[in-house]
């Protein structure tokens, strides 16, 4: 048996101190210990993208990080990005374009899309598809998601539709 280890990290701007077993992955830590259930688990082998979050400003698969590895890090989940207002316009575009149906892929998709727009404010449609190519959606067929990201690009850069 292994004993729980202390970790201290920042989650959505809140300082969290916890004791976790080494084998607990970051997705499960967020969901079960912090009850931040917006980070979804879809495959646990890093392929589907449903668990995408930000660690120290960069997107990662929460299922492929151990909670102990997040010690000392700044973690942002969909709840935090929503409350801070950082992706309000992206979310509005998703709503208007119905770029989500069941909503399960949506937190990861929004975080991945925002990641793209932070690095590349005017991506082409192909570039959008490429950046999101690691996020699985079974409901939308992706076109509405790409449209919504494009609409956000236009509104952020002030270009007309």
């Amino acid at each position, binding site marked *: 048996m292994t004993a729980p280890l202390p970790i201290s990290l920042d989650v959505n701007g809140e300082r969290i101190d916890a004791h976790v077993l080494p084998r607990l*992955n970051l997705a499960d830590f967020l969901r079960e210990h912090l009850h931040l259930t917006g980070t979804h688990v879809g495959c*646990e082998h890093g392929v589907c993208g449903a668990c*995408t979050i930000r660690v120290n400003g960069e997107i990662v698969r929460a299922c*492929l990080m151990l909670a102990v*590895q997040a010690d000392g890090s700044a973690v942002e989940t969909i709840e935090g990005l929503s409350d801070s207002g950082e992706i309000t316009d992206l979310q509005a575009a998703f709503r208007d374009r119905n770029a989500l149906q069941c909503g399960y892929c949506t937190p990861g998709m929004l975080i991945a899309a925002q990641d793209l727009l932070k690095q590349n404010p005017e991506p082409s449609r192909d570039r959008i598809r490429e950046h999101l190519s*690691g996020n699985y959606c079974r409901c939308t067929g992706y076109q509405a998601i790409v449209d919504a990201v494009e609409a956000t690009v236009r509104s952020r850069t002030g270009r007309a539709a």
Partner: protein
Amino acid sequence: MKASAFTYARPTSVADALGLLAAHGDNAKVLSGGQSLVPAMNLRLISPDLIVDIGGLAELRGIIVTGDVIRIGALTRHVDVLNSPEIAAYAPLLTEAVAHVAHPAIRNRGTIGGSLSHADPAAELPACMLALDATIVARGRNCERRIVAADFFRGIFQTALSADELLVAVELPRAQERSTYFFHEFTRRHGDYALAGLAAQALVEDGIFVDLRPALFAVGDCPVLAKAANTLVGVPITPKRLSEALAALAEELDPHTDQQATAAMRGHFAGLLLRRCVSALLGRPELSSNGRAA
């Protein structure tokens, strides 16, 4: 699936890490980026007793150019390689190749040390090391070894590293001024492991290959620096010579059949890749097809 229980250590020095590996041998696994290790643990394909997290070893980070050598620390993440001006300037093949590794979220965590130690036959970076004539620096408790890439990759998930050694860095010669490169892989979807791929470094002068190092991946147990390409160095390339080299390549390779592709298909792709590589590097589009019409 949840990983089996394990003990976790986060050494604060390379010496400490090596001490742990020496003590635990095959019961321990090194955790670098975790992008290959953690899925395997989550799926309970492996159940190590001890995880040695080397993420805190600052000395394993960083890209340094000294003279003609680029030294890339083992903990350098794929995204760091992708964004590195030094790599772009002196080893652009790597910049191109690393963009094909999985997806952004994976590249933000996965490391070059991890990728090379893991030695997935379908991975991009091991083949790049062959093409770039890289040297892997491995450290054990008592000594440091320098292993040329050609000797490093031994088989499926097998390298020359022993259980108590840590890959600490990889060193590449700075690309010569007029050198060129080629990279292509066949994947069913963006970011997938390749069905077959080729990473090549070359030097071309007046339409003649002075040097040509094409490394194929996903065509066998480990990446292959195609010996068949040797016949293309120092001579004018005619369609006949190229066909002969391709025939020699087919002899040289022993591709595997798996769910993704048969041996025959891999062999077909390997030939296509070498053909396209030569055609692209020489700027001679007419060489890229073998002239077969519908």
